[in-house]
Each structure stands twice: as structure tokens, then as C-alpha cells.
């Protein structure tokens, strides 16, 4: 399991995937953390699929507005230049390819870039929310997650066992152990993070990895 430290490391690394001027959707959970690390040198507009373009920081107690939440249902503020709109417009934005980067959590990612992150059959019924639309809409899909499950089993696998959110949709996976690109030739390990070796990553990954680490 990732510690608070490794969650910060993942979020900080994910932030580097965001360019100045990008419109970005951050999924619920760990992806939300990325907002805390966006460089002040970048103008980045965060989209919330419940109808807000321009998520600001969490409110002070005085600023709390019950009618202003993010997709995780947390009270937020709107940043300067923000716009509100309805859910159809919000997903027109997402589905129409206008979001530059979506950073999502994952339960499993396959070597082809399939993503499973919405359901564990027989255990919980929650629903997919906007994830199935996001994976097909954003120009770049980055999954950030723990490298292995609570039981220590690989979450990056030849094939997903859980019900899919989308097929061949993930571009990059960032975990506490490294950064992996999904390419037409399979998974390519591009970066290994402090405290792990290339062999550590290979051993904890359930699919073949090509190694292209500049170290």
C-alpha cells in the first residue's frame, strides 16, 4: 500500500504530465491530490464533471456554499475565469475531446491499456459515474494507483479480471514504483522511483514490461 509520502510522490509526478494552459479532469480519490501540487508557473483549468470548469481551492468555513461541489461531492470554490454548465454540456466537453488530460484512479490496468476501476462483482454496487465517458474523451488518460493490491498482487496485468471501464484507453500508469507507458508494442517502463529497482517493478507487475529507463 502507498503511504502518504508515496501518494504525494505519485501526485507530484502526475502533475508533470500537465502542460501550461491544459484543461484537466481529476478523478475522485488520489487524483484529487494532484491539484495541490500544480506549479504556480502553470495556468491549469480543472474540470469537474458535475458542471464546473475552474475548480478553485477548498473553501474557508465562511466561503462554504452547499450548491458548489466537485464530482467527489466535496465543497469547493470556483477559480477566476470559471464557468458553470449542465451535465450534458459537461460530458459534451469530455466526450468531444476538449479535455487535455484526465487523471484517474485504477483497480487494474491491462498490458493493452484496458482499465478496470468501477466494480467488484458481488461485493459492492456503486456505479461507474463519469469514468466510462472520461476514458474515451480526454486526449491523454493517466492512471495513478498503488502498484500492487492490498494482498500484494499485481494490479498491472496481462488482462483485467474485473469488469472493464474501457478498452485500450490508458496512455500512462504512474505508481509509487515507476511510470509505465502503454504503447502499441506493449507496456514500457520509463521511470523507476526512489526505493525501487527495475527488477522490483518487473517482479511486481503481472505483464511483460519493455525497459526504457534513462537513469
Amino acid at each position, binding site marked *: 500500500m502507498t503511504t502518504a509520502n508515496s501518494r504525494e510522490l505519485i501526485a507530484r509526478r502526475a502533475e508533470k504530465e500537465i502542460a501550461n494552459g491544459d484543461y484537466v479532469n481529476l478523478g475522485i480519490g488520489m487524483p484529487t491530490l494532484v491539484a495541490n501540487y500544480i506549479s504556480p508557473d502553470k495556468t491549469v483549468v480543472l474540470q*469537474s464533471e458535475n458542471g464546473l470548469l475552474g475548480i478553485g481551492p477548498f473553501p474557508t468555513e465562511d466561503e462554504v456554499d452547499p450548491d458548489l461541489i466537485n464530482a467527489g461531492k466535496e465543497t469547493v470554490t470556483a477559480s477566476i475565469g470559471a464557468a458553470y454548465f*449542465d451535465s450534458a454540456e459537461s460530458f459534451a466537453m469530455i466526450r468531444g475531446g476538449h479535455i487535455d488530460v484526465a487523471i484517474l484512479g485504477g483497480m487494474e490496468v491491462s498490458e493493452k491499456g484496458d482499465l478496470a476501476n468501477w466494480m467488484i462483482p458481488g461485493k459492492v454496487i456503486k456505479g*461507474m*459515474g463519469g469514468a*466510462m465517458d472520461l476514458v474515451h474523451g480526454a486526449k491523454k488518460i493517466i492512471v495513478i494507483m498503488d502498484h500492487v493490491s492490498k494482498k500484494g498482487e499485481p494490479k498491472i496485468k496481462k488482462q483485467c479480471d474485473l469488469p472493464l471501464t474501457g478498452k485500450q484507453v490508458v496512455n500512462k500508469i504512474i505508481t509509487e514504483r515507476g511510470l509505465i507507458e502503454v504503447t502499441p508494442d506493449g507496456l514500457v517502463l520509463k521511470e523507476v522511483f526512489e526505493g525501487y529497482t527495475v527488477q522490483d517493478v518487473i517482479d511486481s507487475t503481472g505483464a511483460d514490461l519493455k525497459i526504457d529507463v534513462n537513469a
Partner: protein
Amino acid sequence: MKTIYKSAQEAVEPIQDGMTLMVGGFGLVGIPEQLILALVEKGVKDLTIISNNCGIDDWGLGLLLKEKQIKKMIASYVGENKEFERQALSGELEVELTPQGTLAEKIRAGGAGIPAFFTPAGVGTEIAEGKEIRVFNGKEYVLEESLTADFSLVRALKADTFGNLVYNKTAMNFNPMMAAAGNVTLAEAEEIVEVGQLEPGFIHTPSIYVQGLLQAEQEKRIERLTTR
């Protein structure tokens, strides 16, 4: 020009057992609080509810769920509600989970006279099972059909007496599309103003979509209070 109801009870009076209702809101934000409470009080049952979520255990649509008034739920995310999970797993409640963008677009299509459209969301997943898949420009899409409702219940910040509506911040969410997709649309507004008081260039829901109005105060419960 539109019927302005004196109470939520009066507004929901024509809603009958077995009807299909769309109910606005995302989480607890933008839900028509008093209309939902009146449905609970009325005890109408076997409802099919189309709404992004299903409230929480003790507020919003969760109240209808608790009283077992819902037969079928069409939603995108229902993870806030333990009773939902119990009824769904036991088979008491029929559930149709729909990707959020597809749900929004199915409702928008219903109001706009579009019976079906192709979308990429859900292709290659169980959502697309049994549905037509077609390739456009080398990419696969699934055919989804539109949704309409006997009644749509929406929540606005302001309404004028013609039925024009303005929503507040992210309390807009599914409300405008649902207003258009209801055979009869009832709008619960925090304030009803005289016609002419709303700026014509900044109306979110034009009056043509709204049949009945109710002025009602809102509790606006907060699901996840997060502060700096």
C-alpha cells in the same frame, strides 16, 4: 402563466403509482427537496426513478428508497447509500447503471426528440452488451436510446411566473435536461419572481419546458464538508 402550487403536496398530487420520474441533482446538490418529501408522504410506489444518484440513507431519494417506493433506479453512481446496496443485492430493486455522460445525453436526447445516438462510453464493457456497436472513423461506438419521463422534478434558484428558470452554480447539473425531458415538469424554486425579472439572455431553462412551479426553502444538506 404557469400553475404555481401552494404546497409540495398539491404539486405531486397527479403523480401515480408506477410512473417514471426524473429527479434533478448531483449528490444532494440541486435536488428538489420538498417535492421528494411530498412523494414520501404521498406514499406513491412502484416508481421508476431516473437520477444521477439515489440520495443518502436519510435524505433525498434515499427516503423513497427506505420506504420501498422505488421499483427501478436508472443512475450512474449510487455508492453513498447502504440501503440501496442491500435492496439491489437482494433483488428487491431493479438497477440500471449508466455512464454519467451517457445518462446526461440520453435525457438531453429525450427532451430534444432524438430517439437514439452513438457514444463511445461503455464500448467493450458490460454496459454495451446486447447493444448495437458501429464503427465511425475507425472507432467503435455503442447505440444508446433516449429517456423521457411522466414527470420531471427539478430544483432552481429562481423561477419567473412564466416558468423560466435559473440555477445556482453546480446545482444546475442534470436539472435543465430533465426539465426538457419530462412530459410534465415541476420546478421547485427557492424564489419565484415576476415575469420580466430574469434577463432573457441568461435563462438556463426557457419557460416552454416547465408546467408547474413551487416556491420552497431548501435545507441544502452538505454531503462532504471540506474546508481549507
